[in-house]
Structure formats: structure tokens, C-alpha cells
């Protein structure tokens, strides 16, 4: 029986509400929590020679920043919640990567915050919530 909840976190207020919501359910249902942060990245974008040379260094810096500025403070703020918490820090397309994380941990539930983009923006570029609702391997809760 699957017993993990995946929650997407990007540091925004709605993401914080999503985490709070996910912690409440996890606690009530006795499930563990995976907090996932995805750094937007496409292997098909174009880089200059300089960027290519420095990419490895930048990547290490980006990972470090996400770890220390976003994930670590969140995890320590939830230390007293009594829920078992792990983190996942990945590069890629945000919705696709969240789906992949959910699949990897056999999540029973996916929780994300709402980005609050306008209708036009979502229609043009698609929204993480919309894509996730269609593609996720488990029920998705979108927290306003």
C-alpha cells in the first residue's frame, strides 16, 4: 500500500499553503512526505561557449542555493510536525519532473500550490497544475 505524499514546493506562499495542507493529511493518515523542488531546465536550450564552460560550476551553485535557501529552512520548520519528511531536488520540466518523482516514490497523493497565472498565460504556456492533473499517477490536490 502506497503511503507517501509528494508536495511540490517553490518557495511561494501558495506552495507554503500546499506544504501545510500536505503535512496535515500526512499526519492524519500516518503517511510520509516528499517535498520536491524542481529547477526549470531543458537539455534542448541553447548556450554560449562561456555558459557551457561554466555550467557545471553554476549547477553546483544552483543546487546549493536551493538546498540552503529553500529546502533546509522548510524542513527545519517542520521538524516538530511528527511527519517523516524527505526532499527531492531535480532539474527538468516542472510538471513532468513532479510526475516522475511521484512515480518513483509510488506516491498515493500529489499536492501542489496554485500559481495564480491569468487565463491567457495558462492557455499560452500551459500550467503546472493543469498538466499535473492530467498526467500524475495519483490523485492531485491543488491548494489555492
Amino acid at each position, binding site marked *: 500500500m502506497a503511503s507517501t505524499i509528494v508536495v511540490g514546493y517553490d518557495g511561494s506562499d501558495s506552495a507554503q499553503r500546499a506544504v501545510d495542507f500536505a503535512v496535515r493529511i500526512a499526519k492524519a493518515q500516518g503517511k510520509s512526505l516528499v517535498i520536491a523542488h524542481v529547477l526549470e531546465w531543458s537539455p534542448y536550450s*541553447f548556450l*554560449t561557449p562561456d555558459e557551457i564552460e561554466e555550467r557545471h560550476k553554476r549547477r553546483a551553485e544552483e543546487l546549493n542555493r536551493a538546498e540552503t535557501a529553500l529546502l533546509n529552512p522548510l524542513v527545519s520548520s517542520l521538524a516538530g510536525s511528527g511527519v517523516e519528511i524527505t526532499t527531492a531536488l531535480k532539474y527538468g520540466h516542472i510538471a513532468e519532473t513532479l510526475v516522475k518523482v511521484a512515480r518513483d516514490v509510488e506516491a498515493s497523493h500529489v499536492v501542489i500550490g496554485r500559481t495564480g497565472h491569468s487565463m491567457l498565460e495558462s492557455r499560452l504556456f500551459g500550467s503546472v497544475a493543469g498538466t499535473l492533473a492530467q498526467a500524475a499517477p495519483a490523485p492531485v490536490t491543488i491548494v489555492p
Partner: protein
Amino acid sequence: MTSIAKAAGLAVAGSVLSAAPALAQSIDDKVNQIFANSTGWFVSFIFSPFPGTSFPWIVMWLVVAATVFSIYFGFVQFRTFGHAIKLVKGDYSDPNDAGEVSHFQALATALSGTVGLGNIAGVAVAVGIGGPGATFWMILAGLLGMASKFTECTLGVKYRNEFSDGHVSGGPMYYMTKGFAERGLPGGKILAVMFSIFCILGSLGGGNMFQANQAHAQITNVVGDYPGWITGVVFAGIVFAVIVGGLKSIAKVTEKIVPFMGVLYVLTAVVILLLNANMIGWAFGQIFAGAFTGLGVAGGMVGALIQGFKRAAFSNEAGVGSAAIAHSAVRTKEPITEGFVSLLEPFIDTVVICTMTALVIIITGQLMVDPETGLYMVTEGGSIQTVDGNSGVALTSAAFSASFGWFKYILALAVILFAFSTMISWSYYGLKAWTYLFGEGETKELIFKVIFCLFVIIGAAASLGPVIDFSDAAIFAMAVVNIFALYFLMPVVKGELHSYLDRLKSGKIKKYT
């Protein structure tokens, strides 16, 4: 005109400000003269033909090397072509390495350094002099050149320097020193220094002044004549903002537009070919017939062969060593994978894009045929008579415009952008050679970058023929040193190749998708 300017130059030698244009003219002349006198021997040596022929030995040097590498690696360019495409698609990329430079990104960046004037102007020159048959030899040289790229790029990654802060420096100068030392061979350091000097000169010349010069020529073609230094200052300003100011946004825009332009160019060519689909068979007939008979071009079959080989080498830079610098910064556990990916470069550059240009020129009937003999009509200068008397970029432009009149504006824009992206790439190659000679450090690097920007202005402003001849010669001198080193280091690549292919077969190398 020049003699008047010269006289004026002498007359005002004492009062600089009163006759600046004339002085500039006399400075041009002086620079020309000094350069011609001191470097002429070097230029004639690099481009000298075999005795009794008009075949430059440097072209033979590149083609022989490409053939040797093709045979030595068992025609790796055909055996691993499919695998190379899978690598670029990311089938073998570990998802945990996401965020590192992908094979696709390395290939796209290296391509934007090579796709450029060679594909547009160079091909027109080849077909304009060597006839349709030159296309056959160009494709052959492109296919063989894939093996040279494979060899140099594998070595470039294998022997690169990784610094403690995570950035990397690689290229021929590093495999020359480290590779030669590893194999117990002497002279690596000397080769590396020679290569670096030629690379710096080549980056300032063919990779900079020539590009600025041609970009200015294209702009004046569209908007009318105006002084070249204006183009030079604008270009230098943009290049400065990118390479010194670290203004990534401009470079990013170029890096995005250049592949788009390349795709648009090929698609337009395909549409033109489809509109004339009934003539494609005839065009290939001309290419094959011309390859072995010449169909009346100057020099016959050999004339077609020289032009085809020469322009392919000028266009895809296989064996020159520049690609080894471009690819070496990629993060990969297997150096050979970068070699596989790089062999797609001459294929895309020469076999696809150059061939498209040639086919469009042939099919749109730009080359005049004598209706009675079926042979091409040759002018006194030795080139084939074209409908409007065009050659170079203008010939390509006329061929594309024959179907789509608006295309000449897109082509002009493409040439300018290609020139710009080639400059950015070569500024990087030159800088790597510079830091190899003088060491890494902000001030040292800044000195080179400022010099580079100054040469943009010189290149656009002046018609410094001998200077440009010399810098072209320097790019090919890079190939002399580089290929010499490749011959000694190719067993290293063979070891890597066998090891990798064995592991691929046994399933030790995992596919992720």
C-alpha cells in the same frame, strides 16, 4: 585614387588632424605593405599547390588525414551515426545529471561556430568555378571529415584541464601536452605553443576580421554604401558587451536565432527543390557527370575536385582543432560520446546545408550551359558564366531569390547573424589559446578580449587583403599542427572506441529512455 591618397598621406605626415581620411588610407597601405612583406612567404607556403598542379597541399593534407582516420577507425562515421543521434536525443543521459550541459547543447553551440559564410558564400564559389561536379567532392570531403572531428573532439574531452572551481579548459594544446607526455613522446609542448599562436592569429583573422568585413559588405548591399568603421564600432560594441560585459542576453538571443536561421535556410531550400522536383534527378545527374568529367569547367574533373574539397574544408573546419576546443567543456564520463556527437557536425554543415545551397544554385539554372554542347560556359577568369554575372553570396542570393524574392533580405540577416555567432565562437577559441600561453587570470583575459574587439573594427573598416590572407593561412596552419598531433594520438582514441563499443554491446552502458 590610391596614389592621390598616398601623396596626401605623405604631405600631411606632420599634421595628423587635418587629413584624417587620407591618413587612414596611408595607414591601411602601410599595414598592408608591412604585412605582405613579412608574412607573404607564410601565406604562399600554406596555400602553395603541388608542383605542376593547382592543388593546394594543405587541402590534400586535410583530405588525406580524414581518409586515414576513416579507415583507421573502420568508418566510425557510418557505424556509429545512429548511436550519435541517440546520444543527442538524450537516450543515454543519466536523469540525475540533468542541469549539466547536454550533448544537444554542445552540438548546437559548436555548429553555430561553423555554420556560416562557408555554407552560403563558399559553396557558391565552389559551384561557380568547379561546376555542379564540385558538389560531389564536397559531400565526399564532408563525409570523410566526420572522422577527423570524431578524433579531435574525443581527445579534446579526454585531455582537458578541470579546475578546482569546476570550470574546464580543453583543446588541442592540452591533448598535445598531456597526451604526448602520457605516451612518452617528445615535442608536445612545442606543438601546443605553435598551435596556440596560430589559433590566436586565426581567431583575429578568419574568425573575426573576415566575418566583420563580410557582414559589412552584406549590410551595404541592402542599405547602400557607408563607411565600414561604423559597422565595425557597432559590431565591436556588441561583441564587447557579450564577451567582456558578460551580457548573456545578446548571446542568448543569437544562439537562439542562429539555429532558427539555419533551419529556415534548409527548409526554404527544400521548398525550392520540391517546387522543382522534376529537376532533382537531372541535378544529381549533373553533379555525378560533372564530378568525373567536369562538364567543361576550368581544369575539368580535377578542377571540380579541388573546389569541392577546398570549400568543404573551409566550411566544416574538420581537422583544424577549433571543434576540439568547443566540445571539450562538456560534462561526460565517456570522452568518446562527445566524439560521436561531434561527427554529426560536418554531416549537418557540409553534407546537408552545403549540398542544399549547391542544389538550389544548380536547379534554379544560375549556371549557363551552352545549348549545343551541353557543357558549361566558362568566362575568361575561369569561372562559369552565371545568369546575372553573380558570384559568392550574391550568387546564392540570386538563386534563392529566383523562387522567393524576399529571401535576399532574410539571407542578408542570416549572414550578419552567422558572422556574429562565428565571432563569438572564435573569441572563445582565441581566448583558450591565449590563456594556455599566458595563464588564466582576469586581467590577462581582458587584454585579449579588448584586442579582439579592436580587430572587429579593423576588419569592418579596412580592406586589408594581406592581413586577411595571413589569418586564413593561420587557421589552416592550425590544421597542420593539429593533424600532426592527431596521427600520434589516434591509438588512444582507438582504445576508447573499442572499450566503449564493447560495453555498449554487452549492455554495460545503460539506456535511460
